[in-house]
């Protein structure tokens, strides 16, 4: 792989997140470098999804600092993450069920649209041009993900694997600089996993998108990621390149139990 890993673009320092008395994350620090694929792994309930939610502003950590491109980030609302070019997919598919594939992916570009509802109502000026301009971009995403044949299908009718792919498409449509993927391969068969891996690597390679990935399939994680963070019970127990993490005493203990 000839890609260049750049500087740190996201730096999380001493993040702690509590829900009442439940400690979801305790004193976690790690960083993400430009153009890398960064995996977050850990047993169930380790706080992986919470971590992603902290990164894109759905949860607000009680302690800790977040630096985005070197600037400390203030408390933010989820829609502000989109403006900072952070896109994500969800563990349980969070597509807009009543809309077609095309409309779902078009929605991904909503922050890039400037026209207002009056222009839309009159179908006048910017409204029409924008619609066409963004359609072109969306079709590129559709081509990339090889889902041309289903563009007009309501997403509710699609099989699971394709829905996951459409969700990736919706995130890609925003042309993000950082993409957060929450278990993109959960529940897929081998073939679908291979396709998804190919798309993730292609996104990383062709668009230079930084990817933060949560995944349970260790084979996939060790194969495609550049660095891995391991969480257990809301604490960080490992961080480094896949080979180092794989052989770490503590990580093996967390996954296989102490007696192993």
């Amino acid at each position, binding site marked *: 792989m000839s890609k260049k890993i750049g500087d740190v673009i996201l730096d999380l320092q001493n993040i702690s997140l509590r829900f009442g008395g439940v400690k979801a994350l305790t004193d976690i620090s790690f960083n993400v470098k430009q153009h890398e694929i960064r995996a977050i792994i850990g047993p169930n309930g380790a706080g992986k999804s919470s971590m992603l939610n902290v990164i894109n502003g*759905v949860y607000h950590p009680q302690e800790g600092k977040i630096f985005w491109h070197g600037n400390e980030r203030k408390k933010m609302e989820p829609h502000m993450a989109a403006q900072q070019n952070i896109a994500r997919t969800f563990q349980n598919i*969070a597509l*807009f069920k009543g809309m077609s594939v095309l409309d779902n992916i078009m*929605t991904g570009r*909503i922050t890039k649209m400037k026209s207002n509802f009056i222009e839309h109502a009159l179908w006048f000026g910017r409204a029409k041009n924008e619609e066409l301009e963004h359609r072109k971009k969306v079709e590129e995403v559709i081509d990339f993900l090889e889902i041309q044949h289903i563009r007009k299908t309501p997403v509710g009718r699609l099989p699971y694997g394709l829905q996951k792919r459409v969700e990736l498409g919706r995130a890609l449509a925003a042309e993000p600089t950082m993409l957060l993927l929450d278990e993109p391969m959960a529940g897929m068969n081998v073939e679908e996993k291979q396709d998804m891996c190919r798309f993730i690597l292609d996104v990383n390679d062709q668009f230079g998108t930084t990817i933060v990935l949560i995944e349970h399939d260790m084979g996939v994680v060790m194969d495609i990621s550049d660095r891995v963070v391991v969480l257990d019970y809301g604490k960080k127990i490992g961080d480094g390149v896949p080979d180092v993490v794989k052989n770490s005493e503590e990580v093996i203990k967390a996954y296989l139990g102490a007696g192993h």
Partner: protein
Amino acid sequence: MLYREAGQFKTTYAADQQLFPIRQDRIGVITLLLVAFLGVPLFASEYWFSAILIPFLIFALAALGLNVLTGYAGQLSLGSAAFMAVGAYAAYNFQLRIEGIPILVSFALAGLTAAGVGILFGLPSLRIKGFYLAVATLAAQFFIVWCLTKFPWLSNNSSSGVISTQKLIIFGHELTTPVEKYLLVLSIVVVMALAAKNMVRSSTGRAWMAVRDMDVAASVIGIKLMPTKLLAFAVSSFYCGVAGALYAFCYLGSVEPDGFSLEMSFKILFMIIIGGVGSIMGSFLGAAFILLLPIFLDVALPFLAGLFGLPFSSATVSHIQITVFGALIMFFLIVEPHGLARLWQIAKEKLRLWPFPH
């Protein structure tokens, strides 16, 4: 055979994204508009205009307004009639208090007033959802009707809040006959339906539907929930407000606050449930069903009774009418929960293949 897309190739995105991409649909809509604008005025009787067509169009417009809010943006509301009342009384007051204001301008201002009130009562939607929101909008229903009765200024000090609407003068011409009123209502409804269709097929509509389907995902994508929901309330109330103004000025001529009852709000809600939640055409189908069915039963039941020689009193007929009406609503909800619009869609999909099985 007739309804088929074969051979209609789209070579540009503009062609693919037009309002009615299928040629047969375009022909159908144009025919329908021609019939409505030219054919109907030639043949329909005065009774048809003032008792059926005008109220049908007005309620279709109100249902369209509610459909924007409930069907597209997913916010349940039980205050549609109240927003119509705001529109009716606002139009009356603008006519009354501003010298020489054109009637269409006061209709538009009435819509804007209703939109303002709608935003106010839409504020709870930022915190609550579903049935709880419906209860909050119920407050609008009672509060607005109470206000209109309580403050005599709003009805120009008339007793019990009854207002008699001013003359309908457009470009110096007074509309008096039902045909003229019908054409006015029809024009307004067509323009507004078109505007609604345009909104729902563009990013405004996509934002509404995104909020409806999955609000967390919508906000992560970058949709601001608050403005999106409030815009839905504003647009919806605007439509209801204009419908209310038309209801007062073109249909009844004289209205009272209690006329805009909760029952009317429910009626509008039933229209979109029967017609199709989240469908522009469903609003029209639902309005037609809810308004025309009782009239149809009124005529059909005594006829049937006569046919079988059953001695029906008029009271029995009206009871049976209610029973049949309720039963039909239940039947439709069970057989096709997505409404008449979905039935129409399924029929179209079948027609595309007919007479071949696949």
